[in-house]
């Protein structure tokens, strides 16, 4: 590792307040594709990338979490400060700091720049979003700003091709050779007097550079009057979510049918072209029946993310956080928990990591503990499979019934999270109120390039999971479902005599009270690795149980004809809580630095899932 770090001729750190465009600039400089969004708190850890300088030497560029000052209140801010001070074990202090300042909101960024300058490290100031600043009538004398600060000041437009060329010219290693590479030795965190002095300096610089604040946009104010209204705002939020889940089912139908037909054709062609034997069984039942069953849900995942990405890019999400702050505060959650919980809809892992932006340990722990209750995208294939199999695709008024059920399941996850947070608040006792301080970004039209890039990233993530861990586990499961072979004279399907069949029979004792058969019980085990694996596992198990009939690509009708409505609803209730995700538990261990919390999390989620499934199974069974 040391060798790899030493190869870089200059280490450059990008530092700035949240949502000033650091990550967009990082992507522009390194050709990387880190996630960017139009709200603060997207980057919670340092990220590194490389760029070749004009002389062929390597530049190592660090993207640090956003921070308002070098006196941190949250973990992500502490990471930014520690990297600048060279306090992180494997990261020496940067040789050059690029302080990124949003030109539209110059005073906020400049305050941090003044603090960073006192560290004594070589520094360049990137005045970002200059295009928006000019449109909104912001006046800045850039040459005077450079004189006042005593550092080069370079205008940038991080989202535009060529928008960082001036900055690239200014970060060539030859220009910074011989400069100090450690922070000022006597540096201390700001006292109240220092903060006051910084404010005085800031006012002086702003006056000197002739800064004029941006003109208020009338249509933005009109939008906010509706979207931030306590009643209309909530109605709009519910409507947006509702349309999103309707679209997941309505728009995805055709592409899902195409993929499904492709899988069935591939299974038939493979079976026809290979002689009967283990290879044919592995490919048809394990690979196509297992991994292929998960692949079908790609269109639904993409539609869900299209909405989420568009909402992110438009600047709507922080407004939703503001709207929900009061409700979240009522159950003991910090308003800052909104962004981590929102991230958890994609996957609980980034959500749990994003909880670093929450200052209080108790608030942070509550957010971490409820993050897995947000319905992650891995649960979508399970929901979609069961809903498509057992809920009729008919209209209820203007709404699609299947979309309605999906919406209800997502709401069930959110409500459960709020209830758990409320219970934790009462167990943990009184807490210090932590107000939500959120900078509302400007509204903007979602950028088509950003949306396509975001969707392409999701396609890659999904396909790499299907082709990686899911495929590997399906092959392992096929092996466990095929061996040992049934004894002479056996009458049942061969899988019943296999390792997986025996395991399923044992687990069935545990899960029979909640209506799960042995096939479902088996599928829950590989589902520990990733939740959507359970769908593939069901595909493999049913294909192996079919005693010669090929059911690859036909999982849905098999479920519809063999499961009761009570069993399907019970499994849906199980997946609202879905205690099984090893990666999530591992991240909780890492973030809390203790085994105690992942164990508590696994136990409470398992208990909730079991109780919810039990009640659902009994109630639906009695009613149906």
């Amino acid at each position: 590792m040391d060798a790899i770090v030493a190869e870089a001729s200059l280490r450059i750190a990008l530092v700035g307040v949240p949502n000033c465009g650091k990550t967009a600039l990082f992507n522009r400089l390194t050709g990387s594709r880190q996630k960017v969004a139009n709200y603060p708190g997207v980057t919670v850890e340092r990220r590194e990338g490389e760029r070749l300088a004009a002389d062929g030497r390597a530049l190592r560029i660090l993207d640090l979490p956003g921070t308002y000052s070098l006196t941190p209140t949250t973990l992500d801010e502490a990471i930014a400060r520690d990297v600048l001070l060279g306090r992180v074990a494997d990261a020496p202090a940067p040789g050059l700091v690029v302080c990124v300042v949003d030109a539209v909101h110059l005073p906020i960024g400049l305050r941090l720049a003044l603090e960073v300058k006192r560290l004594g490290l070589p520094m360049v100031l990137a005045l970002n979003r200059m295009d928006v600043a000019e449109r909104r009538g912001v006046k800045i004398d850039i040459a005077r700003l450079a004189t006042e600060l005593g550092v080069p000041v370079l205008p940038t437009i991080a989202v535009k091709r060529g928008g960082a060329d001036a900055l690239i010219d200014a970060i060539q290693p030859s220009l910074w050779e011989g400069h100090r590479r450690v922070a000022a030795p006597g540096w201390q965190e700001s006292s109240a007097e220092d903060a006051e002095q910084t404010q005085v300096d800031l006012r002086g610089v702003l006056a000197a550079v002739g800064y004029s604040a941006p003109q208020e946009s009338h249509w933005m104010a009109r939008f906010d009057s509706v979207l931030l209204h306590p009643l209309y705002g909530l109605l709009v939020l519910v409507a947006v979510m509702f349309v999103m889940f309707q679209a997941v089912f309505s728009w995805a139908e055709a592409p899902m049918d195409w993929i499904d037909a492709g899988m069935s054709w591939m299974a038939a062609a493979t079976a026809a072209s290979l002689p009967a034997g283990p290879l044919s069984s592995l490919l048809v039942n394990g690979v196509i029946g297992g991994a292929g069953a998960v692949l079908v849900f790609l269109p639904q995942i993409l539609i869900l993310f299209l909405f989420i990405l568009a909402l992110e890019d438009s600047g709507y999400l922080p407004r939703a956080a503001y709207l929900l702050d009061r409700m979240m505060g009522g159950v003991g959650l910090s308003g800052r928990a909104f962004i981590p919980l929102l991230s958890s809809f994609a996957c609980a892992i980034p959500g749990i990591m994003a909880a670093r932006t929450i200052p209080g340990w108790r608030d942070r722990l509550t957010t971490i503990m409820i993050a897995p209750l947000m319905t992650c995208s891995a649960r979508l294939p399970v929901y979609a499979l069961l809903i498509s199999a057992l809920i009729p695709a008919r209209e209820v008024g203007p709404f699609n019934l299947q979309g309605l059920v999906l919406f209800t399941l997502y709401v069930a996850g959110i409500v459960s999270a709020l209830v758990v947070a409320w219970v934790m608040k009462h167990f943990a006792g009184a807490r210090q109120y932590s107000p939500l301080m959120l900078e509302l970004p400007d509204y903007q039209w979602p950028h088509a390039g950003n949306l396509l890039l975001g969707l392409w990233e999701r396609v890659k993530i999904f396909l790499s999971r299907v082709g990686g861990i899911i495929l590997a586990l399906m092959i392992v499961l096929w092996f466990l479902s095929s061996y040992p072979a049934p004894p002479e004279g056996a009458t049942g399907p061969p899988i019943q005599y296999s390792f997986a069949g025996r395991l399923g029979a044992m687990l069935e004792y545990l899960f029979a009270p909640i209506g799960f058969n042995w096939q479902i019980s088996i599928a829950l085990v590989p589902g520990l690795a990733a939740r959507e694996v359970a769908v593939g596992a069901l595909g493999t198990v049913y294909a192996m149980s079919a005693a010669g009939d090929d059911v690859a690509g036909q999982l849905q009708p098999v479920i519809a004809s063999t499961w009761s409505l009570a069993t399907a609803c019970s499994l849906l209730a199980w997946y609202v809580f879905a205690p099984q995700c090893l990666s999530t538990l591992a991240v909780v261990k890492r973030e809390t630095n203790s085994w105690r919390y992942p164990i508590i999390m696994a136990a409470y989620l398992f208990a909730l899932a079991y109780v919810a499934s039990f009640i659902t199974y009994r109630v639906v069974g009695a009613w149906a």
Partner: protein
Amino acid sequence: MAQQILVAAIVVIAFAVSAWKLAPARRRLRVLMALDGWTARHPRLAGWREQILKPRILRAAGSGCAGCAANVGVKPHHPPR
């Protein structure tokens, strides 16, 4: 027979991939670092080391400050006492 050998090889690889993917990030990084040390002594593997191994190590090391083996003694996320 050839079919059975091929299937056995696929299953063994699948077991290995599953174990690797499910291993903790810190353990995976240690394995990659050990592999880096070994390939450094074999000049013939220099291209593979530079193009395949190095990006993997950087990705693994960048997965968070606590995910890095070099930070094994640092406890940045410990709850305040």
